[in-house]
């Protein structure tokens, strides 16, 4: 037990991440004093909400040792279909639009889930294929045209700009998603089993855990969240185009990795995820504020993600070694 003090574990990692965020914020604040103002923090959290929602879904998928590259396309497709619907029927209620997007996303996610769980297609291949198919579908349903702000109803756009209890709707939706995810991942049997499937598939199979069903569920949930995010996205930017959110999946995966979610499965906590998403949100918000050249902006993000991955590896090595040491005793 005495050795435990020196072990770099998950808690310590998250503490380190938090310290880094505080140090970074202090540094940015010194360069540009508007950083820590209510108005800037409001826009920071509003702009990070969609990323945060997607990161929850991606975490589930990553925990099962999978990956989902199709979510950028799903965002575009769900956003396009919902905005085309709103353009055709302006009186449709915003809640119905959100439901429509979520269902479309869940359907796409289910197809991926079937391919991965039932037909054993590698997740990277299955989602790469779906990414192209869904992106193509987006162009087909829209005929290559954009849906613009004037074609969307005020209620639809208010999904992203309106406020509930003084908080921007996007932030409220993100908080709801996190609350549900926290309960699901930590306090339901299905949630705990998803971890089991990811950390040791063989042991999980032997103990009778329905692996296929759980993997399917992870992709379906990811799809549903991506569909929801699609509606939020087009409502926020008041424009739907064929190449919406192109490549956004990589941002989401980066947020997960920063948050300590392991690409090799089984590991990932919501507390870390929140920190990872916030860090990425701060980078997106603060680098323009302190006038970092566009060439450096990408480089800095890359270096941060790389540093996080290295820390993850060290954490894993330490916990493994610790586990072995305990076994020896």
């Amino acid at each position, binding site marked *: 037990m005495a050795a435990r003090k020196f072990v770099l574990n998950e808690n310590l990692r998250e503490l380190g991440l938090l310290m880094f965020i505080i140090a970074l914020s202090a540094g940015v604040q010194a360069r*540009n004093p*508007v950083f820590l*103002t209510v*108005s*800037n923090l409001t*826009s920071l959290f509003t*702009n990070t909400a969609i990323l945060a929602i997607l990161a929850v879904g991606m975490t589930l998928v990553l925990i099962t040792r999978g990956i989902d590259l199709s979510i950028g396309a799903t965002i575009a497709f769900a956003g396009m279909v919902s905005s085309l619907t709103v353009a055709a029927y302006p009186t449709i209620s915003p809640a119905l639009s959100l439901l429509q997007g979520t269902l479309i996303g869940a359907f796409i996610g289910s197809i991926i889930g079937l391919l991965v769980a039932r037909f054993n297609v590698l997740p990277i291949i299955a989602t790469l294929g779906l990414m192209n198919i869904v992106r193509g579908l987006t162009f087909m349903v829209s*005929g*290559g*045209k*954009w849906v*613009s*702000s*004037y*074609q969307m109803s005020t209620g639809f756009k208010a999904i992203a*700009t309106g406020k509930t209890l003084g908080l921007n709707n996007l932030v409220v939706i993100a908080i709801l998603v996190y609350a549900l995810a926290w309960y699901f991942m930590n306090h339901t049997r299905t949630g705990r089993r998803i971890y089991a499937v990811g950390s040791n598939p063989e042991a999980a199979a032997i103990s009778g855990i329905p692996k296929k069903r759980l993997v399917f569920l992870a992709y379906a949930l990811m799809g549903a969240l991506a569909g929801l995010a699609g509606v939020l*996205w087009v409502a926020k*930017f*008041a*424009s739907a185009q064929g190449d*919406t959110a192109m490549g*956004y999946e990589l941002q989401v995966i980066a947020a997960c990795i920063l948050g300590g979610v392991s690409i090799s499965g089984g590991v990932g906590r919501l507390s870390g995820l929140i920190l990872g998403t916030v860090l990425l949100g701060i980078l*997106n*918000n603060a680098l*323009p*504020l302190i*006038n970092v050249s*566009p*060439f450096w902006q990408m480089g800095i993000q890359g270096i941060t993600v790389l540093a996080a991955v290295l820390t993850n590896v060290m954490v894993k090595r330490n916990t493994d070694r610790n586990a072995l040491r305990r076994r020896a005793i």
Partner: protein
Amino acid sequence: MNKRLLMVLVIVLLVAQATAVFAAGAKEGAQVQRHAFIFKNTGNPYGDKQMEGFAAGIKEQGFEAITRAPDQPTAEAQIQIIEQLIAQRVASITITGNDFDALQPVLTRAKNQGIKVLSADSAVNPASRLTHINQADSEMIGRTLIQAAFDMAGGSGDIAILSATSQASNQNLWIEWMKKELAENAAKYANLKLVRVAYGDDLRDKSVSETEALLQSFPNLKVIIAPTTVGIAAAGRVITDRKLIGKVKVTGLGLPSEMAEYIENGACPYMFLWNPIDVGYLSAYAAVAATKGSFTGAVGQTFSASRLGNFTVTKASDGGTEVLLGAPFKFEPKNIAMWKTVY
């Protein structure tokens, strides 16, 4: 019974089509010159307007216009159309190329048959064309945008540029001209300060973050110039969301459909883009001039385009020659309602 009715209908249709073909043949006999315009693909409202302008310009001069566009925006599809037009012995072909080089063989064949070939909007390589009808002059775009910002800022205050990527060649050229306009008229713009060029990479989320950073960093910001469709709409959205309409103004180059809301609500008093109808109309006059013998598309040659005035052929950056439409078209509250459904 139904089947027989259907048969009759089919026969009637076939006969009608055949007569149409004969009628077309008859017209050719009557020596009405026909001029063709090929756009990139069908179902593109921007292209429809170009074809409309072209047809109007040809008709005004007493000739017949053929406007065609393939289903898919590919060079192969355009090659098929060009072959049909060669067979129909049109007088000229004006094309918005789907590929810079791939159309050269078929266009050379057209040229060898005595057909005059020009390009418009999207160029084909200099060897394939007499000249190219280009939308707007980079210099004029840059200068116009600074003048617009000066006007909107009321002569003094901070202005910023929100561009696409830092590598985008069009935008960089325009920004260069903007800076030149500021430098050359230093006295006029003494109180106008260009505080930053930000890059939104033509991504919605990044353009929004960059716009917000501009607003946070420069409290005296009066105007944001965004010479890119995604950037200007993102800036319009942020200004509207943050209830800064009237305080900070947006201008630049944008699609009327994307910008309609922000022009109507005042976030963007006016903005610019080329007028597709005029691109087509100017092409029509250049095409007819080319069939009149003396016009070969060489630098310095001039022709008249009726309501648009006189034009001179200039040297293009790709080594060929071009005709510049001129100042970009202004979209403002009084005309945006008409244009927002167009493109």
